């Protein structure tokens, strides 16, 4: 265990973090969770730090969560979204970011549709970079908050059985989740229609299932993913209705297992598709706790990175 410092200057993906890094982020997040539950939810740690939130792709939750985390640490924040910017006029990613950095920004939080965009940036510029989702590659902060929320529910994840159900092929959350959960010693199973599960995914050390009933019987925690229609250029299954019938999680499916399963979803949820309203609003669902923990996790990452400069 490396003590009080991260092993890296950037959070580009779970792939690049060590188990000790992940545990340090969790430990720090616990302190920040106490802070955000106070009447005054703000601390001055990052008062001399400027953070740029660069969102080249739409986002509500992640962006708000990062912005709140930054503001609760007293950082100065600039926001940028691609839809209203010079990217539309043909500027390259590097030029855009270099322009923003000339305005003396210390940290960059970036979401981009191209896999590897955050890594590319870290090779070319000097600021600390946090990947807020790069295409179908990774979404490290989501995976960290997922694993943290799981830990709150079921304790240490060593040996725990976690299922990831849904569109594995297009999901960056799935990949980051797999890396993160494995580093913490959990067993992971992915489940979905064969067309939405990447070939050779077993090589990552996860088991594969095409039967949602069996997966639910097996797991302690089920993390449900949205069908990412916006990334699907061809049809991967006949219809949404059919998907909902075969892979949607209904209350009776859970009841039939006769045990408690923690239900999670990174959002946005599509009620009636991958999750029924009844399940989403049930007491086993921790979807809203995930959102709360998201702010604490992001505060912890910003805090720890700011210290490494």
């Amino acid at each position: 265990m490396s003590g009080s410092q991260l092993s890296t200057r950037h959070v580009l993906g779970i792939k690049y973090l060590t188990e000790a890094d992940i545990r340090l982020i969790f430990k720090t997040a616990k302190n920040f969770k106490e802070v955000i539950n106070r009447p005054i939810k703000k601390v001055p740690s990052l008062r001399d730090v400027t953070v740029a939130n660069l969102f080249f792709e739409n986002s509500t939750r992640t962006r708000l969560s990062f912005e709140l985390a930054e503001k609760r640490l007293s950082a100065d924040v600039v926001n940028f979204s691609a839809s209203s910017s010079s990217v539309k006029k043909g500027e390259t990613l590097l030029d855009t970011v270099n322009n923003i950095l000339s305005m003396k920004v210390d940290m960059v939080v970036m979401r981009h549709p191209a896999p590897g965009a955050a890594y590319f940036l870290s090779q070319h510029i000097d600021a600390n970079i946090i990947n807020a989702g790069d295409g179908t590659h990774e979404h490290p902060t989501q995976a960290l908050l997922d694993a943290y929320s799981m830990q709150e529910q079921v304790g240490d994840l060593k040996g725990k059985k976690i299922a990831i159900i849904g569109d594995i092929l297009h999901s960056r959350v799935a990949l980051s989740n797999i890396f993160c959960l494995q580093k913490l010693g959990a067993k992971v199973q992915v489940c979905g229609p064969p067309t939405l599960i990447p070939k050779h995914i077993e090589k990552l050390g996860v088991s594969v299932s095409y039967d949602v009933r069996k997966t639910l019987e097996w797991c302690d925690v089920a993390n449900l993913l949205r069908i990412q229609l916006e990334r699907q250029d061809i049809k991967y299954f006949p219809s949404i209705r059919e998907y909902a019938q075969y892979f949607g999680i209904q209350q009776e499916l859970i009841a039939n297992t006769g045990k408690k399963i923690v239900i999670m979803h990174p959002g946005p949820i599509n009620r009636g598709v991958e999750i029924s309203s009844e399940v989403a609003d049930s007491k086993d669902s921790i979807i809203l706790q995930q959102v709360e923990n998201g702010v604490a996790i992001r505060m912890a990452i910003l805090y720890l990175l700011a210290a490494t400069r």
Partner: protein
Amino acid sequence: MKKGRIILEKERFQLTLERLCHQLIESYDDFTDTCLIGIQTSGVVMARRIQKGLAAILSKDDIQSGNLDITFYRDDFRLREKPLAPSNTTIDFNIEGKRVILVDDVLYTGRTIQAAMSALQDHGRPRQVEMLTLVDRRFNRHLPIRADYVGITVDSVDEAYVQVNWEEADGSDKVLLFGAKNIV
């Protein structure tokens, strides 16, 4: 190997704490609307000890005491090599309108106390804040801050180092002074 000189051994250490308790009773009487706030980490141990001492003298076990962590409030955060590991803040009562006694074992530059006072503000507006310390290094201050209740005063050069050992945490009660490059 650096060896420290004992400047307060067990018996006098405990006597000093007792004296501090009596001084507090002198100004706070029965401790209505008053609370102790220990600064993480060793200030917390000291606050517990004072709380216990007061309880014994006054036969009163409802004197409130909380723990305050100031890691996120430090002004040297980005100047350090490594981030400091935060501890817990547990103040499970309202400090609004209360008289607060801040407790820390060593008062040195005053920066910890400055951070503690801004941290305290985020929990409410106390009526009054006073400061209690076991060791006051009065010649090493960076800020206009002083303690209201002092165990012992140590006049030493900047390079010297004062260490307080607590029975709960370190096995025995004593205060040690380490000299600059072992001169003392």
